[in-house]
């Protein structure tokens, strides 16, 4: 009995060889994100991502609030990367309000941003361990992450979501005990990173699971528009901190890693090296920071000029940008967020098709897709 087309039902032919598996939103291997893979034997022949499980309409809600009120809502989208998601928003708001923030505030923003980058990478490394079946690689990064959460707590006041980089500067100044505590943490963690590299990354089983898996050649990486670690592992040395330096990154001495093997292993190594560079930047910031105010005086109902601003920064996962259109009132007219997860999502079907089912967790997580951020 065939169903007529006017019934409006969506039918699909069933093939005996192919098995359609839905890695659904309630799955320990997917986060809040669903994608459907069609499997033939052990090879994936089709992958269709289906985001939108946690879509909350953040962009619409910013039109009802003034610039300061939207910040707690926006920062909760990208939970492991809170400072970096509101920094371009604050920078665009400042551009539209026509103000410039004091230099000490820029240094503090840099410190918090790099701290957040380390936190995000450690979380990524923990879940990468889970996906590959390695429980120690979950426990150790999560344990070390607590040290950096403590640093964030001293500076920002909360453990996870600080609302630190507001339009006009930052919310509060650096407490006295931060510097000593930070230096101790960096010394400890730099030794631990050497251990991580030896134990987790030089493991022959890990190398077999990640080398040569999920290769994204350079030309395709550029034309598909991927960002972040995915781009840097495909032999493109591109980072918004050196392409279009903001805050005071021009005066910082750090390097941006890139590998030419373009596979999952390269993406894992890029994460590791970036953590080291983040600590280097934070040390330099703590030394070079001038004194002064940390916040420009703004009223919460600050008026803006008519126009638009497009700002971008390097978040932990890649290049994040905000496009704000303003009509001169205290509330933005349109806020459009371009998140690195959505830009990397297009690489997911491209990399999954043709690979083994068992490679799926390794490839999926190495793209560092955060579903809540992509759904806004």
């Amino acid at each position, binding site marked *: 009995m065939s169903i007529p087309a006017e019934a409006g039902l969506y039918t699909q032919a069933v093939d005996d060889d192919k098995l359609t598996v839905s890695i659904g939103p309630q799955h*320990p291997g997917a986060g809040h994100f669903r994608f459907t893979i069609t499997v033939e034997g052990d090879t994936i022949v089709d992958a269709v991502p289906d985001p939108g499980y946690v879509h909350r309409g953040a962009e619409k809600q910013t039109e009802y609030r003034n610039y300061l009120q939207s910040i707690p809502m926006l920062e909760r989208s990208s939970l492991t990367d809170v400072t970096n998601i509101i920094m371009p928003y604050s920078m665009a708001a400042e551009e539209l309000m026509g103000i410039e923030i004091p230099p000490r505030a820029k240094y503090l923003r840099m410190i918090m941003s790099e701290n957040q980058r380390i936190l995000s990478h450690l979380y990524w490394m923990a879940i990468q361990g889970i996906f590959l079946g390695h429980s120690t690689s979950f426990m150790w990064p999560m344990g070390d992450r607590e040290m950096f959460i403590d640093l964030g707590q001293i500076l920002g006041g909360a453990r996870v979501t600080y609302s630190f980089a507001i339009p006009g500067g930052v919310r509060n100044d650096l407490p006295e005990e931060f510097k000593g505590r930070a230096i101790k943490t960096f010394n400890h963690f730099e030794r631990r990173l050497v251990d991580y590299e030896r*134990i987790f990354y030089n493991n022959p089983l890990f190398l*077999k699971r990640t080398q040569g898996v999920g290769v994204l050649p350079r030309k395709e990486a550029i034309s598909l528009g991927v960002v972040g670690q995915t781009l840097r592992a495909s032999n493109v040395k591109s980072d918004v901190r050196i392409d279009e330096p903001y805050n005071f990154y021009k005066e910082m001495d750090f390097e941006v890693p890139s590998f030419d093997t373009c596979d999952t292993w390269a993406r894992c190594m890029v994460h590791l090296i970036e953590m080291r560079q983040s600590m280097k930047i934070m040390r330099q910031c703590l030394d070079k920071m001038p004194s002064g105010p940390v916040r420009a005086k703004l009223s919460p109902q600050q008026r803006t000029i008519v126009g638009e601003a497009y700002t971008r920064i390097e978040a932990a996962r890649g290049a994040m940008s905000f496009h704000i259109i303003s009509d001169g009132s205290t509330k933005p007219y349109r806020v459009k967020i371009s998140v690195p997860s959505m830009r990397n999502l297009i690489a997911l079907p491209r990399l999954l098709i043709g690979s083994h*089912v*068992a490679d799926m967790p390794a490839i999926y997580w190495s793209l560092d897709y955060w579903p809540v951020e992509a759904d806004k």
Partner: protein
Amino acid sequence: MAAITNFEDFAKRILKIVFWLLIILPMVILPLFYIFYVLPIEISCNFNVLNCSQKIDWSLALYMFDPTKMNPLDPTSYISQLGLGATSPLFKVSTFPGLTFAALLSSMVIWYERKLLAKMQYRVGPLYAGRIEGILQSFADLFKLLFKEIVIPAKADALFFISVPFALMAASGALLAVIPISPTNYIALSPYSLLIAIAILGFFPIITVLAGWASSNKFSFIGGIRALYQMISYEIPLIISVLSVVILAGGSLDLMGIVNAQSKIWFIIPALLAAIVFYLTAMAEVERIPFDIPEADSELVAGWLTEYTSMVFGVINLAIYIKLYALSSLFTLLFLGGWQGPAPIPALAWFLIKTLIVMTIFIIPRGFNPRVRLDQLIGLGWLWLIGLSFANVFIAVILRASGLL
């Protein structure tokens, strides 16, 4: 119950009745048969049925539980008379060195594994259940599992679904039956005990596929098929590595004989390659990390175990750990000299110490290894392990033929 409308339904109904009988028969009828028919024979022959010359007293079945038969000067003989004494087969099978002993040891090994992994991961592990360092954690989990509801999915085939834990427990128990743990403690003594153990290991892939298929769940099905690939690929290297030991022991398939042949030198030294192959294949047979593809919980939730809840899950897990204990004791008997060791410590204690050390070596790779991918795993089994184990067979033949060993 669906109505029978044609011959196909009739055949299916008959088949279902036959299968239910096959399940009920061993669980209900066999114990009753044992108590009321076999036990009187054994008691009247004094547990030596093969050389029985006495007249068999069938009426013992009626009077067996009669307390007036007890001799007041020697009460314990009544217990032996009932067939429950320490040397009776029932005691050996159920308590020591049989099922209860293995189950208790496996529960302790579960706690030990969790503690060991926790120390490797800078954690504490179980801490609160029991006075000392959470030592009663396994029993606490067992009681928790008892209170949960047994859920059989609606589309699952209930008969096969429920028969899996019984089948697994039976297979693991049968594996224990042929393994002697000291010169005087054994359940069954047979000149072919090693062969029986290897043959019983061949049951497990079938039961795993049955579990995966009967759950009628795509993820479980994929997990069951992966388990089948894994276990079958690793059975042949297992058998060939055991072959080296058999050759070195002079061709005897008896586990007692193999242990006694190690009095000069433990077989791990001439058969080192075989020991390594046996170690890797045993880890794959028990589905330990790094070989736990069938239970890969980041891809397949829990693989072929997904739909099993509460006590059913507990029984399956226990059966897998009993299999781990059985394989560790096989390793000890085949390669580490069994119960041989210097005098003041008894043989049984030596055996237990060595088995615990082997189990530790099985547990430790879980701390620092990710999972092996399926095609890499199968490649390893069919190419490398078979080659290594064959190499050791040649070494064993050369050693034996030149009279060195």
